[in-house]
């Protein structure tokens, strides 16, 4: 169960910190847009690297955990920290069912997120990261549904 909670929390934190890491990139593209559409000769773009700190810290923690539990973790490095239990037929059946349900949630999550994107003009000035958060809502919903389903493997 410890592994389950660690994986779930780390997955959610990875998505959240990825969203935070997008903030300076939005600032960068905003600066570039200002440069392109204004006639000024002088320009400056300010990027705060502090936004990269959460994903950097998480990357170090996850990297260390992956190396530490290398023998136990049979899953690929690229899907880490997600878990896909498949030690026996019951685990494979539950994982398959969870994946199926997580896939079906796209059917509901994508139209909702697309609808939420319609409100972007309201937030464009005050909350420029809004579209990234909306897009990241899709894996966030999927991961939550997937982990709720595979929970019974760890009980």
């Amino acid at each position, binding site marked *: 169960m410890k592994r389950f909670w660690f994986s779930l929390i780390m997955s959610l934190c990875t998505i959240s910190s990825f969203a935070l890491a997008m903030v300076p990139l939005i600032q960068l593209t905003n600066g570039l847009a200002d440069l392109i559409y204004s006639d000024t000769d002088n320009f400056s773009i300010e990027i705060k690297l502090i936004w990269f700190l959460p994903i950097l810290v998480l990357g170090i923690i996850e990297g260390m955990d992956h190396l530490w539990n290398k023998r136990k973790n049979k899953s690929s490095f690229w899907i880490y920290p997600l878990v896909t239990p498949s*030690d*026996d*037929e*019951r*685990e494979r*059946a539950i994982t398959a069912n969870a994946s199926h349900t997580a896939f079906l949630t796209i059917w509901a999550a994508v139209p909702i997120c697309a609808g939420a994107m319609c409100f972007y003009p309201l937030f464009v000035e005050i909350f420029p990261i809004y579209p990234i958060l909306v897009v990241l809502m899709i894996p966030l919903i999927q991961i939550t549904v997937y982990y709720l389903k595979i929970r019974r*493997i760890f*009980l």
Partner: protein
Amino acid sequence: MVFLSNRVKELRARHDWTQAQLGEKVGVTRQTIASIEKGDYVPSLLLGLQLCDVFQLPMDDVFLLEKGESEK
């Protein structure tokens, strides 16, 4: 409705095996044996046959098909 009940718990106790020991014999986790015993999980034909082989009993003596009212 048709239900599959089993005597895995009883037979395991008769052999004085733990769930983990039985799981090891048939190549599944302890949780899977617990789920089969509780009736939460219906094992595959292969796993069912493996369990019968471990208990050295025919399928009929380990797994029982129970029919609901509508099927009778």
